[in-house]
Structure formats: structure tokens, C-alpha cells
């Protein structure tokens, strides 16, 4: 089934409710209410992974994935900023391999600002944020070559990855690097689980900035996101119940669920 080209009234109401829940949670958190976030091992391991590189005196490699400027990549850049700050405080070199040219200036600026925020602007080396290739496998092989030549101690793979995920992570594993990965695409998660030490799964990926910084705005957004998820689960249960009921009574003609989710071409 293709995606909706335009929202119908049901989608507008659902989408609006979820946005409202998230915004209200943010406002509540900004007023100083304590909010609990469960432990996420993959994100907790980031400090350990940077520490390992520092102890070994070897660099870190960070890949923000294959896509250009999009939501998943922006999250990867937020994690990159955090990792660079940690690495800069510990005088550890970090190399960033870029695939999409449009991401290159943004990533370079993120790294430069993270070095400045850590109080070590002089440690920034423009060569360490490098465009490798915008061809999928050329990027993978270029990154693997970089990891091998620089003898990296730690690899971070955060962003959108595709078939090259296994090439990157399996070679990193062969080099003995500690690897932390996170990808919103569920197809790539098994490959990362098989080859990386820590993996951030599913919506944990988008929890990263809140988890790492613990800033009230982001924490509130994370809690709102969980409430919205609960709403969606409730709707799913209701939908399954109603579909089962109408199926059982044989009244499939009156399938209003299908109408609710039908294409929005007719509008509201």
C-alpha cells in the first residue's frame, strides 16, 4: 500500500493529537518536573567506547550514514557532537567519513563547534572530517581503508545504512575495534547486532539526544513520544478488536476502518 499523498481527517486528528502530546510533555518538563528515562545500554556505552580509544591512544571513526540532510542524519549529527565533545575533552582524535556531499559542510561545522564547546578549538583538524564518496560501496571500502590505515580503536555507526552496513561493521570487528551502532532501518539492525558490541534499536535511536544530554526539553519530548506510542498501541488494539468483530459477524461491507485509512485524495 502506498503512502498517503494528503492527510484525511482521521490522519490529521491522529497526527495533531500526537504532536500536541509531545509539545505538552515538553512544556511540562520545562517547568522542572523530573522525568524518568530507562537505561539504554547502547547509548551508555558511548562513554566507554570513547574511553577505550583514549586508553589505547588510537583514533575513533564515526560514520553518519549514507543519506543527506534528513531526520535520521540530524540525529546522527547530534550524537556526533556529543562524541566529539567527549573525545576533545580526552584529547582523542576522531575521524568522520561523509558519504553525501550536502552533509559535508554541516558535519564539519558540527565537529568544529563541538571542539569549541569542549574548549579545545585548536585540536580541530579539517582533514578529519572528510568526504569519501557518494557511491555506496566506494564509501564502504573507503571507510574500511581509513579504519585499517588509522588503526581505529572505536567505531560509531549512527544514521541510515543499507547493504554496506555489514561491510563496515564486519571489517571493524576484524580490526578489533569496539563498535557502537544505531540505525532506524529495522532491516539493518540484525547485521549490526551480529557485528557490533552495542546496538541502539528502533526508537532508542531518536532518544539519543535526550538520553545523552538530559536537557528538560528533550527529555519531555522523549516522554511525550512514549505517551504517543501508547496511544498508537491503544488504537491498534481497538482496530484489531473491531476488525475481528466485523469479520466474525460477516459485515465486511461496513469496513469503516479501511475508509479511515484510505487515501486522502478526497480530502476532509
Amino acid at each position: 500500500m502506498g503512502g498517503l499523498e494528503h492527510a484525511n481527517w482521521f490522519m490529521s486528528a491522529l497526527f495533531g493529537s500526537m504532536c500536541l502530546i509531545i509539545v505538552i510533555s515538553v512544556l511540562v518538563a520545562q517547568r522542572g518536573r523530573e522525568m524518568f528515562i530507562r537505561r539504554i545500554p547502547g547509548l551508555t556505552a558511548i562513554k566507554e567506547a570513547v574511553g577505550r580509544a583514549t586508553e589505547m591512544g588510537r583514533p575513533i571513526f564515526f560514520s553518519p550514514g549514507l543519506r543527506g540532510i534528513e531526520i535520521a542524519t540530524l540525529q546522527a549529527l547530534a550524537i556526533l557532537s556529543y562524541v566529539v565533545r567527549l573525545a576533545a575533552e580526552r584529547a582523542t582524535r576522531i575521524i568522520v567519513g561523509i558519504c553525501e556531499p550536502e552533509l559535508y559542510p554541516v558535519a564539519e561545522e558540527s565537529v568544529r563547534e563541538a571542539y569549541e564547546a569542549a574548549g579545545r578549538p585548536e585540536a580541530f583538524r579539517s582533514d578529519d572530517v572528510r568526504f569519501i564518496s557518494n557511491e555506496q560501496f566506494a564509501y564502504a571500502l573507503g571507510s574500511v581503508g581509513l579504519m585499517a590505515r588509522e588503526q581505529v580503536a572505536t567505531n560509531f555507526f549512527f544514521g541510515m545504512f543499507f547493504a554496506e552496513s555489514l561491510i563496515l561493521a564486519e571489517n571493524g570487528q576484524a580490526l578489533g575495534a569496539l563498535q557502537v551502532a544505531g540505525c532506524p532501518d529495522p532491516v539493518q539492525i540484525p547485521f549490526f547486532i551480529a557485528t557490533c558490541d552495542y546496538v541502539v534499536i528502533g526508537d532508542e535511536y531518536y532518544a539519543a539526544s535526550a538520553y545523552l544530554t538530559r536537557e528538560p526539553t528533550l527529555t519531555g519530548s522523549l516522554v511525550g513520544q512514549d505517551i504517543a506510542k501508547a496511544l498508537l498501541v491503544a488504537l491498534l488494539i481497538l482496530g484489531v478488536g473491531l476488525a475481528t468483530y466485523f469479520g466474525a459477524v460477516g459485515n465486511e461491507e461496513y469496513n469503516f476502518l479501511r475508509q479511515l485509512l484510505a487515501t486522502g485524495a478526497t480530502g476532509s
Partner: protein
Amino acid sequence: MWDSIQSVFQPTTSPPQLYRNLAVALIGSFVLLALLHRFLGPRGRRWLIAFVTFVGGLYLGLEYFLPVRTAVLWPTAIPNPNPDRGANLLTPGIEPVGIMMSVIGAFTVGLGIYSLCQVHGRSLGQRRPGWHNSLAFFLAMVAMLVFGFWAHYLPKVDEASAVMPVPRAIYEMLFSGLFMPLQAATFSLLAFYIASAAYRAFRIRTAEAGLMMAAAFIVMIGQVPVGAWVTSGLPTTGALAFFRLEALGEWIMTWLNAPAQRGIVFGVAIGGLAMSLRIWLSLERGTFFSEQG
């Protein structure tokens, strides 16, 4: 008025007008960027980014949520690529906005090439270890550029009857004879990487790994003829049919794997929505976003 605004985004067919528009756009962009760099501090720059992000998000959001009517409000200046599709007031602008984003993205290719030349130029100039790789990069880039452009601007000939010109033949050799096979060879390496990753993943160390191994074994063997043969003694109908390996494998994929995957996708989608909302309202923290107050 809407028509005249839309017509600005239409492609230009007359060459003099095209070159004039190109020159104006390029000079205008450089002047605008120079002025912004000169007069906007970090705070101003963040405000500008927040404003552009908000307006962009608002436009795309409204286009999705505004009610649609079939083939109405379409400006005459723009050909409608899909007349049967519903549209609202903002729909005609979607394609020009997409093209604008592609054009901005295309400018950054130059930055990518600059980065590569900078890194490999230093490596070559200082004879760092592996400098020969940098030399190979420059040779490959120059060869592809020269023969690519040369082949592109050669006069068109009937390829069926004519001998392929030398520049085009060299370009074909470099692209189809060298680059494409290298890509295919890299892709084929995945088979070996999958085998070694699977070996590591399936080592039974914990109860979860054992469960995964058992499920993987059933799914894999259920998809090959030997799996069907092993349980061919079981009936094809009735309760016992469920225990035929091909049926069991299908059941694991449909009833266990698919719901788990969909659950992850739901979580990711809501996480993406929350992240989009934070970026749209400039609530996100870090580079390009404001610091926590």
C-alpha cells in the same frame, strides 16, 4: 498573482534568458551569502536557520494537511504532472521546491570534491604513507572528468552504424569495464561477510542466542527442498500440518518476525515525528540549534 509567482519557478527555454537568469542567481546568491556572513553573528545565524526551518516545515506540513479537491487551483503557468491527483493551493509548489532543494544539494558536490582534493593533495605533497592511493585518486578523477566531458560533448552519431569514437570508448571502459565490476565485486563480498557474521551470531552462549539459533534453523531449512522432505511424512491438512518445517518457518516469519519488525517501525516513526517537531520548532539542541536557556 499566484500564477505570476509560480511562473518564476518555471524552466527557461530561451538560451540568452537562461544564461542571464543563471548569472543573476549565482551573483545574487554569492552576494547574499557574503552579506549574511559579514553581518550575522552566531545568534543571528541561528535565528535565520530557525526561521527558514519553520517556514519550510510549515509549507510542507500545510500542503499535506490542507483539504484537497480534484484538479482545482492549478496555475496555468505550470503543467500538472498528475491531473487525476487531488491538489490544494500549495500542491503546485511541491515540485519547484523539490528542484530548489536538489539545486542547493548539487552545489555541495563541489565542496565534496574540494575536501577530497585537500586531503589527497596534502597526502601526496607530504608523501605520507599510502600517498600512491592519493595519486591513484587524482589520476582516476582527472581521467573520468576528461573522458566523461569529452564523450558527452562529441557530436551525436548513429551508434549502430558507426565505430565508437575513442573518447567514448575510453569512458565506457572506465565506467562500464572498471567501475561497475568493482561495485559488483564489492557487493558480492557481502555473501562472505554474512557467513562470518552469522557464524558469530549463532554461537550458542545464552538462552536468547539458543532461541535465535533454533528459530533461524527452522526458517532456513523450511525454505529449501530438504526442509519439506524432512517433514514430508506429516499431513498437509489438519493440526499436524502446522509442524511441517515449511509451515513452521512461514509461521515464525509471519506471526513472530513481522509483528516485531512492525513494532520497531512504529517506534521509529513516532521517534522521527518527535525529532521533526523538535527541529521544526527549534527545540533541538546542539550545532545549528539554540543552546538550552
